[in-house]
């Protein structure tokens, strides 16, 4: 406790101050918002703060993450934040973990020990995970996020308000493979091509499976055939990376031969601007390094070729030690390659050219971030948390920073849970079972016998069993690593809402649970309930398809999608 806090006492009451002091808080993320929150929680007098972040400190963090400076670059955020905060203020008492919050060791039991959770994350996957754990453990969650001048803080009181997943969030951008490989129409298509196709085939880990949907139709047979040939040729080129003629061969193939091959498919260009194979001017890899440092201006064709040649030399020389290289926006060699190759492709297809600086933003999914918006959002988040602890439930507000002439943000009473939500709208229970407990035993002894199901499907992060899929029936919980995880039980008779079971190791036992019936469609469509009524969440249907399981997603033939969001893109992944 930093001081007598007379103001806080008078304004929020003695009880609130006591609750703040005895609260145990989990803070997920020690980035821009995380650093602000640490400071605010410490000054407000929160007794015990646990801080989780997997990430290390990067130069580009320093314009806002005030606990970090030059000397901390590449060190773990969570640990440095703890130590530096203590240098600034001896009252700081933080338990720090350099870990992924989705790690199994942060179990339901662990989440249960917190009074409040703050999310200060920038990736949807981790946010959804924390949200699910908070809803499952009935722990209030204050989810903060910013992007440039915009930001939001959502107040989530499980069972009473919407959760993070009660509303749909925009899906990450993805593109049809044909757009990327054959018919790019925007500069971003060239960038995705250079990064996810060309770079990874030449330098990346061998692709696990073909990027193509093998379903052939009369429409795409010719195109798929040619794309396969193109990909195989690249594979051959990769074998010859160290040959002195590699660069010439590469340029000849990808910017001339492949383009001619595309042009030969007349039908493709009837309604499109046709590409023009590259006319290769004089260039030299010697100029590459100097040009690559000029990242604010657009390079000419010859300059892009010079940078490409130079970056290829740099990447090839690394291959002896590294075997394979993955794209990383902060790895200059990989960024130079992608910036140069994408601009060459864009000029072939008559698309806008981009500076290396701009390519980096797109290829690395960079979101602008400034100190002020983080300060604003963090302030709002902690105020809501203090209001919650002061019992001012009716005054709780979720906030969107959206500046207009007459206000800084809009705030709204959190809405009631969405009965269709896959997190808020399900039944939950816990069970214990030994390591050698099988899926079949789970279905027969527990689900059918004890809970009265007749036909079920079971999912974890993949399909485990359904009436037509019995491969896993004799496998044990240990073999499938299902301890300390949720499995989802779907009623195939379509009567009950989904049931989420959290399994821990122990003698066979399942916690009593009432599984509500699925509401009929008309009820489900009715308006959201007033949070004041605090009606418990009801129902939802989850199918294997919703869960996005392999082989169950449907997509048009030839319309496989390349997901732009890859592991290496996550900026502050926690």
């Amino acid at each position, binding site marked *: 406790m930093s001081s007598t806090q007379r103001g806080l006492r008078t304004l929020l009451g003695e009880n609130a101050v006591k609750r703040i002091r005895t609260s145990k808080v989990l803070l997920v993320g020690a980035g821009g918002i995380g650093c602000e929150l640490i400071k605010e929680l410490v000054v407000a007098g929160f007794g015990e703060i646990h801080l989780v972040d997997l990430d290390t400190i990067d130069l580009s963090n320093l314009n806002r993450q005030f606990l970090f400076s030059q000397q901390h670059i590449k060190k773990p955020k969570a640990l440095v934040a703890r130590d530096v905060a203590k240098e600034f203020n001896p009252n700081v008492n933080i338990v720090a973990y350099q870990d992924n919050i989705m790690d199994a060791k942060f179990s339901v039991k662990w989440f249960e020990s917190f009074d409040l959770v703050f999310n200060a994350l920038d990736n949807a996957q981790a946010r959804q995970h924390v949200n699910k754990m908070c809803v499952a453990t009935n722990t209030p969650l204050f989810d903060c996020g910013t992007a440039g001048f915009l930001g939001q803080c959502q107040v989530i009181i499980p069972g009473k308000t919407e959760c993070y997943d009660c509303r749909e969030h925009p899906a990450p951008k993805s593109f049809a493979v044909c757009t990327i490989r054959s018919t790019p129409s925007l500069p971003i298509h060239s960038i995705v091509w250079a990064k996810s196709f060309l770079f990874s085939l030449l330098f990346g880990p061998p692709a696990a499976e073909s990027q193509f949907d093998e379903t052939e139709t009369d429409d795409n047979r010719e195109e798929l055939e040619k794309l396969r040939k193109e990909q195989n040729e690249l594979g051959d080129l990769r074998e010859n990376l160290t040959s002195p003629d590699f660069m010439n061969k590469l340029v000849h193939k990808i910017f001339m031969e492949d383009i001619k091959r595309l042009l030969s498919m007349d039908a493709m260009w009837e309604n499109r601007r046709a590409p023009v194979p590259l006319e290769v001017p004089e260039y030299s890899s010697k100029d590459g390094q100097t040009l690559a440092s000029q990242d604010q201006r657009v390079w000419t064709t010859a300059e892009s070729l010079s940078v490409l040649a130079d970056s290829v030399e740099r990447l090839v020389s690394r291959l002896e030690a590294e075997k394979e290289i993955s794209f990383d926006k902060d790895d200059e060699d990989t960024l130079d390659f992608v910036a140069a190759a994408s601009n060459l492709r864009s000029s072939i297809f008559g698309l806008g050219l981009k500076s290396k600086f701009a390519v980096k933003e797109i290829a690395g999914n960079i979101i602008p971030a400034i100190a002020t918006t983080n300060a604003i959002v963090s302030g709002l988040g902690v105020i809501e948390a203090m209001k919650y602890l002061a019992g001012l439930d009716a005054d709780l507000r979720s906030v969107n920073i959206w500046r207009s002439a007459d*206000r800084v943000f809009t705030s709204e009473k959190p809405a009631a849970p969405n009965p269709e939500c896959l997190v808020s709208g399900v039944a939950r229970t816990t069970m214990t079972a030994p390591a050698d407990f099988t899926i079949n035993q789970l279905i027969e002894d527990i689900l059918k016998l004890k809970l009265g199901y007749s036909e079920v499907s079971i999912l974890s992060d993949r399909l485990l069993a359904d009436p037509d899929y019995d491969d896993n029936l004799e496998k044990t919980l240990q073999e499938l690593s299902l301890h300390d995880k949720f499995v989802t039980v779907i009623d195939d008779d379509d009567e009950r809402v989904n049931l989420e079971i959290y399994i821990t190791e122990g003698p066979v036992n399942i916690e009593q649970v009432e599984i509500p019936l699925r509401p009929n469609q008309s009820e489900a469509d009715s308006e959201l309930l007033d949070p004041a009524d605090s009606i418990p969440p009801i129902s939802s249907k989850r199918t294997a398809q919703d869960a996005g399981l392999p082989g169950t997603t449907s997509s048009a033939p030839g319309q496989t999608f390349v997901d732009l969001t890859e592991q290496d893109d996550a900026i502050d992944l926690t």
Partner: protein
Amino acid sequence: MNKYDRQIRLWSEAGQGSLKSARHLVLGVTAATTEFVKNMVLAGIGHVTIVDGNSVTEADRSASFFMHHDVDGSNRAQVIAQYIQSLNDEAEVVGAAENPNHYIQTPELLASYDIIITTRLADDILMQLWKNVCKTSVLIQIDSYGCVGQVRSFFLWHTIVDSHPESRVELYLHNLWSEIESYSDSIDLEALENHDHEHIAFVVLLIKALQEWKRRHHNGPPSTLPEKKEFKAIIKAFERTYDQENVSEAVRNAWRVSVPKVPEGLSKLFEIQEGCNLREFGLQLTFFSLVRALKQFVAKYDRLPLSGDLPDMKSDTAGYNRIVEIYRTKAKQDAEQFARVYLNLCQLEGLEPASQSEIEHFCKNCRHIRALRGVPPNEDKRLNLRVHEDSEFKSIFSAICGANEYLYRNHLTTWYGDQSAAEALRDYSAHYADQVGLVYDSSAEELHSVSAFLGGIAAQEATKFTLHQYTPFMHTLVYDAIKQATHVFLNGEIFN
């Protein structure tokens, strides 16, 4: 790559340069002004001087992260300056252990700062300060009391050249020049094969349609609804194949043939500078002399300079490249002509001209420039009390001004334990006293999170004033943390 990468993506290297050369003066240390300084220093401000004559108190410790038992007895400004300097060695942070009043009464000490931040100044002192600095600085006052607070900005003019418009596209089809016209004339639509016909850029289709329109009518481009329908029918008649994409694009862009007007705000700026001595615009001298030159350009050519930006269009590559080249060349010529007009003007008026790149930047953005005229502190209070709606926020505003006055008159930093203060606060808050209780309950102490919020808002405003790219609010923002709501009392004028 540099450490400002994530913000340069918003406001460009040029914007970052403006921050680097900015100088701020902070009069009085509170949690809110401390947070302000922290945010500006992280963003890369060039220099900030923090002035405060007092040492760290118990109230500071309960609201500010950087003040704790270890620094008891030290001067507040120096403690803050030392900690915050460690956040960014590219910024210069100076702590001055002096009474802010000394600065307020010494104009020479104020002259070199672009933005002056004050806190809890009584209104007449604020007015006195304003009179000394309004020609050279923007004034921002941050007041934080418990769960309420406000940020007020005072400035004579704020100008914006790059206002981040969604698009700078302007085709100027009503006023064709020879290159674009002869390019269009070189294409004989009827002689083209279907495939080539489908790849004629919509710009050309619009020019052809407009020529046909002029053959039929003599009164300028289509303006009434039936005329617009007729014009679209002319375009539609070009169609050879079903749903021909370039023709659909031409129909969608048909509105672009109307005579583009000089935006209303810009015409007003033309009027405002007319007949003025440009030097009266003080810090905005360059902006307004460019505006005067722009007016002369418009008088001469009957249109604004072309930006050279084009929309996406379906076209064959050669045709598209040709159109891009024609528009770029024209935009370059316009920029040169504009520069000539401007440099002439500077010579005539004996002004130091802006740099070549500044002139080009202004020219490219001229259709979207913006200017705001602010109000002085006394206006802001008087005018606000006339506002009838938002009586609750008006009451908070009034109570906070009253609290500032009370503390200032009585040389206090808190009224903790003094019950008679409630009555006194009520007196100082004049007629709008409903929310005095809320301010009184704070004992003049700050809640850190409220101050962090206000410090964030104020720093964002200061950033806008420094960058000349974004529109600040005009001019008083009042915040209620319990209701989680803000209200901006609008005042002054905006021209855009």
